[in-house]
């Protein structure tokens, strides 16, 4: 086993953020497709990670393939996947308070006689009756799993409450803490690596969000590379501690660094 830096084993896996890192809206980051191909030749495992809770893996795959990225559905890992992974591990049967379009990613999970509550972005489910049902389950011992805790999001007709407020309310009602599975939680990164058979110290994360991508990954024991595309703003690298292992212009530069220094 080669040691490329003190105490750190050679790289086995690369996690890559999607929106803002490989593409921005409907445009690929220049050179990103070729950079990905080069990375694949280097025999490291690759996974594409994102916090989306409304789009199924199939939707994401279609968009990326349309932009000429070479990837497979089973290489995509979303916060929904993190939730699914956790449910399978603990053998929970969930009450799924998630958007209909996200249910697809939970196919095959037994939802009869639920003994766990999973909350995503699901306005249709945030009504009094359903929340009462979730509340009573948690009081009876069901764990509360939150896909993420966003305060609000932007809809066409203005700002709208995200899942965060409802998760917080249920935590207050039950004196329980939710397990949050999306970035930047450690659980997310641990689950993303779990089927790759490598430890966090053998992995690196590339993303445009200093706190959620890089900060979260490094907190989980991985290396983090911050790219200056997408939502990146001048000075972001100074907002996390420790700072990113590397801050570079875009995804192709990150790949170059990995190929030259981390393998």
């Amino acid at each position, binding site marked *: 086993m080669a040691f490329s830096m003190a105490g750190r084993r050679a790289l086995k896996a690369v996690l890559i953020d999607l929106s803002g890192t490989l593409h921005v809206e409907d445009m690929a980051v220049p050179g990103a497709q070729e950079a990905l191909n080069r990375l694949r030749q280097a025999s490291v495992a690759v996974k594409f990670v994102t916090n989306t809770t409304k789009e199924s893996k199939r939707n994401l795959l279609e968009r990326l393939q349309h932009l000429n990225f070479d990837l497979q559905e089973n290489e995509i890992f979303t916060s929904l996947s993190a939730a699914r992974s956790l449910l399978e591990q603990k053998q929970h049967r969930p009450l799924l308070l998630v958007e209909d379009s996200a249910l697809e990613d939970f196919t095959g999970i037994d939802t009869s006689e639920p003994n766990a509550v999973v909350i995503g972005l699901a*306005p*249709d489910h*945030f*009504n*009094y*009756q359903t*929340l*009462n049902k979730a*509340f*009573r389950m948690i*009081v009876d011992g069901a764990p509360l799993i939150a896909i993420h805790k966003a*305060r*609000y999001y932007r809809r066409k007709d*203005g*700002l*709208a*409450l*995200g899942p*965060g*407020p*409802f998760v*917080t*309310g*249920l*935590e*207050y*009602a*039950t004196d329980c803490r939710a397990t949050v599975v999306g970035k930047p939680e450690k659980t997310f990164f641990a689950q993303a690596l779990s089927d790759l058979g490598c430890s966090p110290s053998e992995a690196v994360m590339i993303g445009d969000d200093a706190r959620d991508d890089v900060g979260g990954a490094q907190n989980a024991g991985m290396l983090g590379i911050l790219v200056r595309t997408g939502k990146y703003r001048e000075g972001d690298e100074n907002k996390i501690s420790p700072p990113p292992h590397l801050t570079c212009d875009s995804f192709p530069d990150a790949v170059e660094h990995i190929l030259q220094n981390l393998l």
Partner: protein
Amino acid sequence: MRMRSGHFVMADEGWPGCAKSLKGVILDMCGVLYDSGEGDGVAIPGSIEAVRRLKESDLQLRFCTNETQATREKFVAKLQRLGFDISASEVFPPAPAAIAVLKDRSLRPHLLVHDGLLPEFDGVDKTNPNCVIIGDAAEYFSYQNLNEAFRVLIGLEKPVLFSLGQGKYYKETDGLKLDVGVYMKALEYACDLKAEVIGKPSPTFFQSVLNDMGLQSHEALMIGDDLLNDVGGAQHCGMKGVQVRTGKYRPSDERHPTVMADGTVDNLAQAVELILNQRRR
């Protein structure tokens, strides 16, 4: 011996002995007098008689509630239908206190409350709201209604949120239900602000009841089913607080990390029996 305003008084005695020196009792209502549910709900066994015995004694009596699904008038009428000897002037719910605050601070509210409470706010200017009031809206806590309240707050330069109580849940005849506190926390999180609580356990609220009775806090005892908001809130003001094992009581309440009731009794009837026994000696 401890000095209090020039008089010698016995060292602070615990429950039930403290009942000897009491001058007034404050009762919570839901979970102590009755359980809410279908229609008028159900009187808790022994409570009607217990209230009668208290009224016949030399103790002052008031009712303190965080009930916000109906106006005080309608709510008192319901209790009377259930058989309780009770009148509006003895009952202290949050809405009248909230209206006083609005007047005091020249605020115009956006209301997220139960339909049944709306008449209480008939005389209040609700145009161009500069604050939000939430009450126990129950099924009116739809995503849409919550979003509307959220949008009012997020659009204000100085957002002000009043919560009529901060309870976590209460018990109805068909099980536990989420209370206003849950939605208060939700909006606090969404807007990154702190709500002002009107009603139990706000000290101002308890003080207004004590003022009406003309009593100091150490002369009064609060009896309730909510360990944090009834008992804890009362103790915080200097009153004794006793919890009943009816209503939303749960066995874990007797092992709570921060609040320890001065006494725990099976129900209001038992509390009153113990109080009157102490005073007969």
